[in-house]
């Protein structure tokens, strides 16, 4: 079959950003997978609750301090995160470097707070089904904070390396910032479920 050229692509940008990039859509698809996982964990929680004579089973509702502090902290962390995303879009290397250092530190703090959240539940995972789902929900979300932290740390190193000043890498930073928004957004219903549903 003979080819006839009808379109010239030379003048297109050499890579896409945001919705014009593949990794943006890939991140979105993975968020859909993980979001489904989070939603199912809440469903399991509510299902077990619907079967239980009392809820929580044989323990007091969790203490609010650690979890509420962490929630407030996560919401506040969105502010520098949004700035970081904006700087990445503007390809401002200096500001992106600073923003990544800030977000790395802001990724460590919730892990410390999380360490206080587990004991605040007043239950171990192997005591009863309530303990099991509470630990799994906290654990699932902690894994997400941890993986995003590792990703942010690697990106920080990357942006300080010779590979940093590159539109594709700025795209990575902006996708990573989007993922942190997701980690925060998914926590809010989990927080409501873990801390306030037992108090209804």
């Amino acid at each position, binding site marked *: 079959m003979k*080819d006839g*050229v009808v379109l010239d692509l030379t003048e297109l940008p050499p890579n896409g950003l945001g919705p*014009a990039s*593949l990794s943006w859509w890939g991140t979105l698809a993975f968020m859909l997978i993980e979001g489904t996982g989070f939603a199912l964990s809440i469903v399991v929680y509510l299902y077990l609750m619907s*079967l239980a004579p009392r809820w929580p089973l044989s323990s007091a509702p969790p203490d609010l301090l650690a979890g509420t502090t962490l929630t407030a902290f996560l919401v506040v962390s969105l502010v520098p995160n949004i700035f970081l995303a904006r700087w990445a879009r503007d390809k401002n290397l200096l500001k992106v470097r600073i923003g990544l250092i800030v977000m790395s530190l802001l990724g460590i703090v919730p892990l410390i707070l999380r360490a206080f959240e587990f004991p605040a539940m007043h239950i171990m995972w192997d005591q009863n089904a309530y303990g099991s789902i509470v630990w799994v929900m906290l654990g699932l979300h902690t894994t997400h904070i941890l993986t995003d932290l590792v990703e942010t740390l690697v990106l920080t190193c990357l942006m300080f390396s010779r590979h940093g000043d590159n539109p*594709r890498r700025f795209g990575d930073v902006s996708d990573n910032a989007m993922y942190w928004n997701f980690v925060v957004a998914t926590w809010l219903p989990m927080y409501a479920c873990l801390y306030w549903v037992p108090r209804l």
Partner: protein
Amino acid sequence: MTRRAVGELYDTAFNAAVLDRRLASIWSTPPGLWGALSTVDHKIIGRRYITTAFVFLALGGLLSLLMRLQLAQPEARFIGPDRYNQIFTMHGTNMMFLFAVPVMQAMAIYLVPLMVGTRNIAFPRLNAFSYWIYLAGGLLLWVAFVLDTGPDIGWFAYVPLSGPQYAAGKRADIWAQMITFTEVSALAVAVEIVVTVFKQRAPGMSLDRIPLFVWSMLVTSFLVILAMPAIMVASTALILDRLVGTHFFNPAEGGDVLLWQHLFWFFGHPEVYIVFLPAVGMVSTIVATFTRRPVFGYLGMVMALIATAVLSFGLWVHHMFVAGLPRLGESFFTASSMAIAVPAGVQIFCWLATMWAGRPIFKTPFLFVIGFVVIFVIGGLTGVMVASVPFDTQVHDTYFVVAHFHYVLVGGAVFPLLGAIYYWFPKLTGRMMSEPLGRWVFGLIFAGFNLTFFPMHILGLRGMPRRIYTYQPEMPWSGLNIFISLSAIILAIGFLLFFIDAIRSAKSGPVASGNPWGATTLEWATSSPPPPYNFARLPVVGSLKPLTDHPGALPVASGLRVDRRELLVSSVVQALPEAREPSSEDSIWPLWAALATTATLIWSIFTPWAVVWGSIPIAVALIGWFWPKGVPEDES
């Protein structure tokens, strides 16, 4: 305006022969073991996937022959009850998780990038990783079986049978962890396909010009993305119950055994459509080609695909009608189970209308489509029967259900798949399979299948339960059982002939012409098998039948670089060009990442600390995978 840097080379500067040479040097997988282990070419990985899945099909088929040997006569002593439990569990698990889902995704890995007119799948390294993880999961299951540690809890592993109390040892853990392997790989492929279809379509291929097979794989991928997390949650909870003493499924401590069934079937029912919808796409493709006209009701077909996918999430409870659920809930699920017959019916009628209005050419792929229609309609009718609670209560756990789901799954998926293999074999290998042998294969499989599985309806109505390793001579089942076992030999010979034909044709079949069936979709716009870069210049699409718009000529786009792997990113709805995007070069890191993941997952059957320590090599491998290597593909 984009500034062209010094030294960048564009395809506009070259004639066809030089361009082919340039592109080949950039896109080819190097020869040798290292090249094979680090390739990210979707065609090589797709072929690997397909071959591996068919090996698992053959192994699963051997298991079914063993079962038929055992059941051929009452009180047989050929296989003991423990081995029999492992064999039927392995058969179901293997066929669903290692054959049916992967083989459909594998066909998409190979075909979707070609059909949408791009040069590689999105996230090619993830694609390589997914294959290694799939292979590792399959090996884990089969090695365990050979070592007499194969799971023996049924393919849906109901608790409490699979829980810590009744399933000592590691057999249930092998099953649960095999789930992790296959679901990780399936989810990865689903993401690749969604992004490939959304963002890598050839310029001009707007949503209403996407081939129906690609539509079906897009919808299937969304089903995978939304359904598979449920089985991951379930199998993780099962492993935790067994390993660290959680109580998800322990009623004594506030857990619930039905929770397992809900989670499993919330995945398990869409799973049926994850297998069936790709087959629908294959049927539409074959019907269009062999009736010489487009499929009747394109919009209706697409809507039916989407409707089926949405409804498939509202049916799961019909697998649990005898579990003692509230009556109102059961009535709802009866209604929804019957409702899904409507979009299935729409599709069947569209195909029949296409055949009616077209000029059918009865070649082997088309024969399999006719076999599909006949068998799937019978399976669909028994499906409407078992959607009724009183009838289901009567036949639950009998051979009637075994007959029903083999009619649906083999009729609905394997027949279209075999047709698709005959159809796309020239694309994959450049050679034709044998037409006379293909007719024998179809005849033997069609006759063998019906003779084997139709009598199972009657066996079920006569009360023969599933999953029994033997039965007493007083039961009225012996005659039909020996008949079924003998019929299974016919079916097996059909498959044997298919494998012989495929292997022989791949080596020495007649060389295929460029477009041997006269098809109209883009995969036939390039040579067979396609070059590593798929298309020297990306096709520009103006209709649903891009190959017939300009007979003898193909409108194409130029302006991609030839000094790095580059493809086109286009907009979601209209497929307007948005950017030139680099595509990953080969890498060994996906293999390292898969090995680290495999070690961690298998180790975690024995201790939870494996997750902690195993995450370190996984993280190292992932960093190695993503860290820029200073190659042109990293540039912008």
